[in-house]
């Protein structure tokens, strides 16, 4: 049951061009930095990336766009990344915008064996174009399909050798739903402990959803907008 890999390079060695990859994080918060760095180094291309945002110009998912590795990006927001917008207008990649809550739920559904479900979000908007709509109890809903992902890259605070994960504060965000969804979920953690050291009541992502885990070092944990009291 030991899921510890010695390096991120070992974890990603089988990823092929054209793979569908989920990347956890909300902006740069809870970002699988080591996984992205390894993807950059690997040069794997034509990726379909599912992520909440495009990161920023020079960090996070933005790095994969700069490196021309993404064919299609599915995200809810690219507003903090001017470079992503320029590359989009230049036709370098395809963008599918999906409401944030729908991204989270499609990821969870993919992990939970629910092929489709209905949400009110996006009804009547261009984001619902081409999607089935249906009325329930007098209100209109849009049918959304579960995501499928070859890999999910997630980042947690603590993890154990069985793949159990605990997130810090708001760094959970998309990481848990995406961990559920990946055919292969690769978790990187700041602190890796032997199975048995984490309280089973405190686990946010049970190890069954995680296939590979490793401890990262020297996390940059870049802050997008540092705001301080009285400053």
């Amino acid at each position: 049951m030991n899921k510890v890999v010695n390096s991120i390079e070992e974890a990603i060695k089988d990823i092929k061009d054209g793979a569908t990859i989920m990347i956890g994080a909300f902006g740069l918060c809870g970002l699988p930095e080591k996984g992205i760095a390894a993807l950059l180094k690997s040069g794997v291309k034509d990726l379909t990336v599912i992520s909440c945002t495009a990161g920023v110009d020079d960090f996070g998912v933005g790095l994969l766009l700069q490196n021309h590795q993404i064919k299609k990006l599915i995200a809810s927001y690219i507003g903090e990344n001017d470079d992503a917008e320029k590359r989009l207008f230049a036709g370098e990649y395809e963008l599918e915008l999906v409401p944030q809550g729908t991204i989270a739920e499609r990821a969870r559904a993919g992990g939970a064996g629910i092929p489709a479900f209905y949400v009110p979000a996006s009804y009547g908007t261009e984001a619902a174009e081409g999607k089935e709509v249906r009325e329930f109890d007098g209100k209109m809903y849009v049918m959304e399909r579960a995501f499928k992902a070859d890999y999910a890259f997630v980042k947690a605070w603590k993890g154990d050798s069985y793949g159990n994960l605990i997130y810090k504060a708001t760094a959970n965000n998309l990481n848990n739903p995406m961990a559920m969804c990946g055919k292969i979920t690769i978790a990187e953690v700041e602190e890796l402990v032997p199975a048995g050291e984490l309280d089973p009541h405190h686990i946010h992502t049970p190890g069954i959803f995680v296939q590979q885990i490793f401890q990262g070092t020297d996390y940059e944990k870049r802050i997008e907008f540092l705001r301080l009291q009285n400053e």
Partner: protein
Amino acid sequence: MALDKTGIAKRIAQEMKDGYYINLGIGVPTMASNFIPEDVNVVIHTENGLLGMGGYPSRDNYDADLVNAGKQTVTALPGASFFDSATSFAMIRGGHIDLTVLGAFEVTDKGDIASWKIPGSRVKGMGGAMDLVAAAKNIIVAMTHTNRKGEAKLVKNCTLPLTGVQCVKMIVTDLAVVKVTEKGFQLIERAPGVSVEEIIEKTAAPLIIDGEIPEMNI
């Protein structure tokens, strides 16, 4: 006189009732949280995964892992909880949020809202806005009454891509408080010193005016 941002934020704060769970968009909506009366206890929800958001941290205790929906460093108040995005949007979609306040480019007299995209200009994305407007119980828009070109933002039909349909309940602008009723826009209050005529002139849809319109009390 037209209100400034602070004025709009103060008026919005009056809509916050004791015991409310509230989601506030970036900018003026978030600013409103500074003006909540002391005897009104609310919990701020931030859709990236926190109930019980507090103010900005001090230089000694900020944490890259603790941010709000605007990706700004924040704090968590006593009684807070952290959770993933699926659970966070379950709160929104499931109608557990009592009040959502957000900005907009245009709002129609049926409550449709356009707030996320200006075609040919910038591409940002809807983030969590489409989830919020589709499901919160009570949606208030905070915006200026007209855009930079002086064009009305309260309209019959949106010219910009929609964020959601028939969802906005009330609009607080620098000039007025307007409710979206079954019969269309209804003028409820006007900014101090602003005339009903000016508000009518700057609104591109019929405005129901029922008796004397009081000034906002801010």
